[in-house]
């Protein structure tokens, strides 16, 4: 299939339709509105339904209904809207329903700004909603990768009966790049025999539920969820790393920030510095093990984010105290520059920080 030039937000929609997603429930919010607009145009052409809900809360609960009814379904929003969706996301996780949720992050807290940010890392990887649950969280760094992850993400959601989140930032939503749509790796997807389709008089009623009033039942349900999360951790970690066995400094960054880090690394290499990169593609499950491969005499790990330091906590967990962990970030819609990253790397090499 040939490549087509697409804007990030529209590519998300095209990838979802390619993956067989027929239902989209959403609510307008900048900077992701091109996605619902695309779905409003394109979903009816494939026999699907686009519905603009009265709120993000309603939209995610429509997703809960449609997912429970057995459909491939998605929603999208941006940071404050994703906050509103947390109730439904927790119910989806509790009732083990597959769906895809896209967060094109903007600055916070509160109404924040409409500029790109990565300030929802905690919210995405630490729950956000109530209860002991996890989402599979993908952080694509370019549009092709985002398209691939969306197509695979629907399968991952179905395979594990778990919500999947695509965590992008305003930059990846707005940029244009050539993409092609490729089928994902083949997975054995289970029948959705749990879905509410009407009994047809042929089976006992199916119930979609996250309520377990007896403590022993709720504990058992949580143990089952944790066993599932363990399997996801074993099988679904994705990470890109570069030159970490030989590096004097390793940068860790995700999403579009990792692209800026790569620019900085290329410049540093020309000056003779040995700098590696660990780019988590899944933020949950987090690629902790990758950090074990870092050159033992590495002088430090620099985490770069468009926030005031969130993933840096996971980096600290990952390095287990073996290396100093430094942080450089810009926030509020400000974007880190390669020059600022270079300056930080040089300081680490020179023992200044």
């Amino acid at each position, binding site marked *: 299939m040939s490549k087509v030039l697409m804007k990030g937000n529209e590519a998300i929609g095209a990838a979802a339709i390619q993956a067989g997603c027929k239902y989209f429930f959403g609510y307008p919010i900048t900077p992701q509105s091109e996605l619902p607009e695309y779905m409003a145009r394109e979903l009816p052409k494939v026999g699907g339904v686009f519905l603009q809900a009265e709120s993000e809360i309603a939209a995610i609960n429509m997703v809960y209904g*449609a997912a429970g009814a057995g459909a491939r379904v998605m929603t999208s929003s941006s940071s404050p809207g994703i906050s509103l969706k947390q109730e439904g996301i927790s*119910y989806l996780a509790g009732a083990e329903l597959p769906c895809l949720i896209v967060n094109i992050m903007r600055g916070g807290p509160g109404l924040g700004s409409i500029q790109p940010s990565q300030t929802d890392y905690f919210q995405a990887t630490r729950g956000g909603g109530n209860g002991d649950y996890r989402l599979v969280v993908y952080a694509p760094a370019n549009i092709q990768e985002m398209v691939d992850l969306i197509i695979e993400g629907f399968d991952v959601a179905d395979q594990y009966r778990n919500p999947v989140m695509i965590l992008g930032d305003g930059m990846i939503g707005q940029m244009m790049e050539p993409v092609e749509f490729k089928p994902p790796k083949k997975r054995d997807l289970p029948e959705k025999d749990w879905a509410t389709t009407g009994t047809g008089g042929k089976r006992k009623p199916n119930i979609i*539920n996250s309520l377990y009033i007896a403590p022993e039942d709720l504990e058992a349900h949580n143990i089952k969820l944790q066993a599932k999360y363990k399997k996801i951790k074993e099988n679904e970690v994705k990470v890109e790393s570069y030159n970490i066995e030989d590096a004097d400094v390793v940068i860790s960054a995700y999403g579009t920030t990792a692209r800026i880090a790569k620019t900085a690394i290329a410049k540093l290499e020309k000056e003779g510095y040995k700098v590696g990169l660990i780019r988590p593609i899944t933020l949950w499950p987090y690629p902790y093990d990758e950090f074990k491969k870092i050159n033992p005499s590495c002088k430090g790990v620099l985490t770069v984010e468009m926030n005031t330091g969130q993933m840096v906590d996971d980096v600290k967990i990952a390095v287990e105290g073996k290396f100093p962990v430094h942080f450089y970030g810009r926030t509020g819609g400000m974007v880190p520059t390669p020059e600022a990253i270079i300056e930080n790397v040089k300081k680490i090499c020179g023992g200044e920080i």
Partner: protein
Amino acid sequence: MTIVFERTKGLTDVETHYCPGCTHGIIHRLVGEAMVELGVLEKAIGVAPVGCSVFAYNYFNCDMHEAAHGRAPAVATGIKRVHPDKFVFTYQGDGDLASIGTAEIVHAAHRGEKISTIFVNNAIYGMTGGQMAPTTLVGQKATTAPGGRSEEHSGRPIRMSEMLATIHGAKFVERVAVNTPANIRKAKKAIIECFKVQLEGKGFGIVEVLSTCPTNWGMTAPEAMKWLEDNMIPYYPLGNFRRPEEAE
């Protein structure tokens, strides 16, 4: 001998958790009977609320979803858009529908969503222990209105049926009560008519059922029925507010 009344197949064999004399049991039965009589039980998908009827998914003998508080109409929307040929209903209390879920019910009606809603109004939060609801009558005592609801402080109780009947997409709106056998029979007729509006693809339908809460009202079940008649019906008049032919 002919059996003229027996347990409907629309309900499972599970005994309900409701307090003695709670009218949820009557309303569940009417919904179950209506689904069987219309022949839709096997294609029915129901949505249970949060509140006393949170376990309704154990009682209706059809596929069920348990929704978050107030969100049942949004959940039902998701289901119905996936399965437009199925029969989809929500069963909600007054805290659920008339307080936290006002946006969801108003907009499901506004879209003319082809679902049916059973709205059980007992003028109190039952499950959480008798707090004031948006439907609690002026002067009626509740644990969060210990001196009785004050109009000055909390406003007058909300009349959902009258409000929803102003929305074009709401094609069937009726208020009934289950305080006497005669009213219970009328309630069943209304539920059947409401369900038919969905089955005929005409739009959104709701039946508001005035109900009792003997436990939190602090009365016996027979006293509660009398209280409903003397206090609720005068403020919440029974009757039909909208039929499809009137909606145009």
